[in-house]
């Protein structure tokens, strides 16, 4: 595996940065594979990597209509955490966090995981009670979580608005020390490079237009680069998944909404943790370059257009200024949106789709970056063995007919 050691960096630096090799092969699709994954976001790429690495499969392709990570993976605000409420969710998101903790070493690629902790902040006694409930649930589920006092929160985040007249004076909240941020592109590229080294074909600029089925079995995909046969097909196409699944007669409980993010001009270090405010729905962290990375709730208009609307911007940014009035002086450098796949219970759909050999990994909505290692691990398990891993079973599509929803939005009061 080619590396980026200090020595290699120095040598290339002194020789005009010529001779770097692409991190993954630009593959042309072959006529047939054992497994085809639709979508080259984090979940699709991680699935391919674990199929090859853990299950020894070799004839694997990832088909991506644009460029790797050009969907939500490369647009997200990179908060990783496992401070969820239900045991099923904690099992899922903490598997992801544990895998993230070893990922740079596993992939030999620095994903820049920074476990700087995260505070979910409350400003009313009722919210503090909810926070205590979630922190207790986290501990019962063997995950690090604690209730942080208002004083401790202000010590950690001194810029928080604590004026007597502050609309959202922080009373404390849930603290998870293992939460943090990771580098989104690096996660996609690291999985891509490691998968490519294991023989996975990563095909960019290849749009899947149809699913091929014969007698209730999936047999391949139709693409703008021709027909590709496959014994198993995994769909990891986020907001595009419902239209793809419909080609095989599968209906999904997904609405697509735009979710926006904002980046400020860079400033000196002023925030060394991730903060999510329950009262405003706004959350933020500071990037290594000094920019504030800001996000919030969904736009309220279903869309497939990757751009946000003004009312949501106003909500997010006015929330920011209530929390940190001095940030009113900052200019925004960039603003963008991704199309996220929102499910009524805010939990993902992982499992067999219906037709034999067709599997789903979608519905991550506003919060699937933190779950990428687990989503890939679990979809790979499904595609290799044909059966659920015990952690993915509760997230089966069947939960909607059985009434076993995992209603995390209500349970955990989360924005993303």
């Amino acid at each position, binding site marked *: 595996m080619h590396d980026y050691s200090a020595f290699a960096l120095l040598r290339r630096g002194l020789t005009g940065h010529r001779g770097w090799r692409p991190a993954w092969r630009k593959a042309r699709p072959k006529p047939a594979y054992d497994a085809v994954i639709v979508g080259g976001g984090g979940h699709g790429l991680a699935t391919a990597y674990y199929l090859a690495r853990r299950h020894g499969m070799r004839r694997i392709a990832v088909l991506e209509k644009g460029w790797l990570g050009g969907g939500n993976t490369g647009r997200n605000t990179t908060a990783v955490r496992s401070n969820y409420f239900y045991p099923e969710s904690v099992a899922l998101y903490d598997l992801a966090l544990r895998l993230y903790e070893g990922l740079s070493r596993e992939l030999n690629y620095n994903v820049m995981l920074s476990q700087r902790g995260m505070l979910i902040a409350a400003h009313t006694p009722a919210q503090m009670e909810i926070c205590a409930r979630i922190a207790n649930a986290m501990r019962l589920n063997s995950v690090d979580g604690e209730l942080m006092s208002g004083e401790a929160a202000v010590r950690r985040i001194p810029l928080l608005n604590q004026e007597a007249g502050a609309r959202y004076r922080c009373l404390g909240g849930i603290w998870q020390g293992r939460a943090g941020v990771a580098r989104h592109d690096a996660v996609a590229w690291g999985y891509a490079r490691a998968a490519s080294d294991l023989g996975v074909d990563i095909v960019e600029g290849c749009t899947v237009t149809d699913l091929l089925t014969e007698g209730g079995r999936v047999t391949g995909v139709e693409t703008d680069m021709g027909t590709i046969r496959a014994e198993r097909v995994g769909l990891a196409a986020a907001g595009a998944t*419902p239209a793809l699944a419909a080609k095989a007669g599968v209906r999904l409980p997904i609405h697509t909404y735009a979710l926006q993010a904002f980046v400020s001009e860079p400033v000196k270090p002023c925030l060394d943790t991730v903060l999510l405010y329950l009262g405003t729905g706004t959350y933020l962290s500071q990037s290594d370059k000094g920019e504030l990375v800001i996000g919030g709730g969904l736009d309220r*208009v279903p*869309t497939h257009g990757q751009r946000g609307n003004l009312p949501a911007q106003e909500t997010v940014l006015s929330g920011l200024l209530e929390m940190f009035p001095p940030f009113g002086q900052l200019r925004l450098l960039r603003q963008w949106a991704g199309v996220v796949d929102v499910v009524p219970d805010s939990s993902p759909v992982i499992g067999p789709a219906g037709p034999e050999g067709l599997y789903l990994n979608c519905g991550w909505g506003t919060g699937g970056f933190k779950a990428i290692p687990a989503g890939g691990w679990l979809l790979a398990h499904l595609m290799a063995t044909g059966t659920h891993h015990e952690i993915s079973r509760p997230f089966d599509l069947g939960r*909607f007919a059985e009434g076993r929803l995992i209603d995390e939005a209500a349970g955990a009061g989360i924005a993303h």
Partner: protein
Amino acid sequence: MQIFTCPFCGPREETEFHFGAEAGKARPEPAPEISDAAWADYLYMNEAPRGRAREIWVHLTCGEFFVMERDTVTREVLTVAALPGREA
């Protein structure tokens, strides 16, 4: 800020409206004979169409539900109409 048009009140800011559901879903009846799968389909499953969509929206200000046809990529509103039997 986008302007949506309520069939009853006329053009108003988008924040006065709320998305309800995709149009054209009929509640399956009679309930005792409906399978769990058919009920779940009615309750939860969507098309999430890319492009032209027919949707039920509510104008929160007057409380009326109505049908809006939109393009989900460009966000252009194509038509608005009262629900059958609710015409002004």
